[in-house]
């Protein structure tokens, strides 16, 4: 029994902003959905099932919002699934939607992931103390800063690498009309001059809080073949590990390595840096670019920063990373993972506009969540997978 082929044939996203006070929660989803359906040249009537993803419900203050939104999402009369796997959820949601098609159960699936952070306060939503577990009352930055510090110590990376990533991603975002931050004139120097928040993470090395959504239409092989440029799904992989475990390496987590190994094997890739044309990876704090380059197998341990320093992760480099501006430039949390998956698909469809990588034929989408413990990844390609 083998997997049915599936491809992305429609992509839509919102204009991401700190506050979309012109739209309700359902309205944010619809802005992305309507664009995805338009791109796929479909209506809700063509859709067999809906898969929704978002980060914790406390971010908007609505319990299982897909229930109230069922009609707005075009789900009435159809199967509706709601995925939640922390920060990796946008990626996991796309993977679950793909599996509906790959299982041979449905032919055309609409998936949407969103976050409307302005409806509530994510910092507080993340700071409810959990009994019997060590408290981290400093938001995500406070949790991840020690991992960054450990990475710098272990790899011997020069301290300006994080600023290089931030400057690159913010420059890339200027080419993306949907990006939340359009900060003209961001350079390594301006990033290094920004306020230190959680040493060694500076203000300009962090992601914004955004309202936004992303939607995809995923179709079966027969449907996809009618399109001129479907993004074929070559491989998907998800892996999880506990938040804390004796011997767990939070700088280079085993779950991320295992997801990457499974992904490359499934996609028939033996040398990721040579065979992948560009990658959208989940980098909410700039230093996660070199860390994930190692975790994903694009670079040997301790050398990821060298790719960044040599400019190889810029558009035009050996392995362009976060052409859209990445999570550093737009972070509607629940949608952030799907935006990475969507950008990978846009690239191989040749539809990425000013941030298009010339000749991109195979791309990686990546997301992570929790305490660097949940990983979701996919490889999409311009060619039908073998």
């Amino acid at each position, binding site marked *: 029994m083998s997997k049915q082929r599936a491809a992305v044939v429609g992509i839509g996203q919102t204009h991401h902003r700190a506050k979309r006070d012109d739209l309700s929660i359902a309205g944010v989803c619809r802005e992305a959905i309507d664009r995805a359906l338009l791109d796929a040249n479909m209506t809700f009537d063509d859709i067999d099932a809906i898969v929704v993803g978002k980060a914790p419900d406390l971010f908007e203050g609505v319990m299982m919002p897909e229930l*109230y939104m069922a009609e707005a999402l075009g789900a009435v009369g159809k199967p509706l*699934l709601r995925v939640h796997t922390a920060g990796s959820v946008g990626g996991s949601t796309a993977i679950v939607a793909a*599996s509906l098609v790959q299982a041979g159960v449905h032919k055309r699936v609409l998936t949407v992931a969103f976050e409307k952070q302005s409806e509530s306060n994510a910092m507080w939503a993340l700071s409810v103390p959990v*009994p019997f577990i060590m408290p981290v009352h400093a938001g995500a930055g406070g949790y991840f800063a020690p991992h960054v510090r450990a990475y710098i110590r272990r790899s011997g990376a020069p301290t300006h690498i994080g600023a290089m990533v931030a400057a690159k991603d913010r420059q890339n975002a200027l080419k993306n009309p949907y990006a939340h931050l359009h900060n003209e004139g961001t350079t390594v120097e301006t990033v290094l001059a920004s306020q230190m928040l959680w040493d060694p993470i500076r203000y300009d090395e962090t992601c914004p809080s955004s309202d936004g959504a992303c939607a995809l239409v995923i179709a079966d092989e027969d449907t996809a073949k009618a399109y001129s440029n479907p993004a074929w799904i070559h491989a998907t992989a998800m892996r999880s*590990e506990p938040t804390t475990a004796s011997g767990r390496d939070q700088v280079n987590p085993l779950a991320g390595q295992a997801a990457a190994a499974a992904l490359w094997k499934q996609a028939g890739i033996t040398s990721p840096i040579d065979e992948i044309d560009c990658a959208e990876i989940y980098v909410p704090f700039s230093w996660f670019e070199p860390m994930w380059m190692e975790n994903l197998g694009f670079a040997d341990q301790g050398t990821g920063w060298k790719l960044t320093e040599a400019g190889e992760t810029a558009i035009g480099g050996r392995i362009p990373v976060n052409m859209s501006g990445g999570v550093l430039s737009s972070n509607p949390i629940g949608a952030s993972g799907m935006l990475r998956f969507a950008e990978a698909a846009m690239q191989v469809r040749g539809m990425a506009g000013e941030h298009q990588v010339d000749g991109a034929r195979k791309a990686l989408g990546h997301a992570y969540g929790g305490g660097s413990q949940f990983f979701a990844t996919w490889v999409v390609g311009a060619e039908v997978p073998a």
Partner: protein
Amino acid sequence: MRDVAVVGFAQRQMKEFEGSPTCVELLVPIFAELFEQTGWTKSDIGFWCSGSSDYLAGRAFSFVSAVDAIGAFPPVAESHVEMDAAWALYEAWLKIQTGEVDTALVYGFGKSSAGVLRRTLALQLDPYTMTPLWPDTVSIAALQARLGLEGGHWTEKDLAAVAQRSLADAADNPYAIRSGKEGVDELLARPLYADPLHKHDCSPVTDGAAAIIIAAKDHLPTTAERPAWISGFAHSVDQADLGSRDLSGSPSARRAAISANVGGAPIDVAELHAPFSHQELILRKELGLDDSVSINPSGGALTANPMFSAGLIRIGEAAKQIWSGDAQRTLGHATSGPALQQNLVCVMEANR
């Protein structure tokens, strides 16, 4: 489609549980029970999937610490739905259908006693127009029951008969938190709780967890002498807006039943996730179950309703009926959302 069967089931349902609200402590013995049933270990499981709710826990990422119960080091392939774990079972079943994995362990958990459940669930309504009015679950169910009474769909006696049968059947279920021997007249003589519903017409607030193992043909545990083969599996949703749907019916339940081919052959036993007496009557009609079908021999949700695992428990109870040889074809059902908005049906059979 690959042939997939339910081969393991464990549960805990209780009035309230002391100790860790992370539910980790509750899941560990449940997983141990499943491994004992199947003779398997963690490494025999290809995919893990869970269902739970952050709002029930009152904090973000409540499922994250539940992963600790797996002992997921080295890492596992894993996912989570913010839904009843019956839908997590659906995701796991899909995963096996893709051919990527051959086995899966699915679990759900929730500690309803930590808050005021009927008020928490009001947060599922439209946040801009409905939630500010705080219509709670029991009141919405009472409106639904009233509509059915006035529309001639059922009588107060019909509701009491459902409760009476459920309470009597629950006497044999060690996990039920409510049971009783009262007759219909005695139940009707009790005080009203939310007119026209009595307390026995409303499921009790219940803590608990449950887990199921499914496996593809050729990958069954040697202990599975009479596996419960999944022959139909489907779900569907209706709009949430209470004013724009006929609350005395449940079109999504009907559609799920058609997609799962419930009517393709006789059903011996149906475990329905009906948290209110009248909802069982709606479901029986929408799923096309006649009087020959044995309904909820476990006592059903009226006698224990642990949120986010109660639907999965219905599937487990229905599978047990096949394992024991008492039934040939059974049905497990799960619901979610206000007034039966979303429904799932899983049909299982002894023969493959």
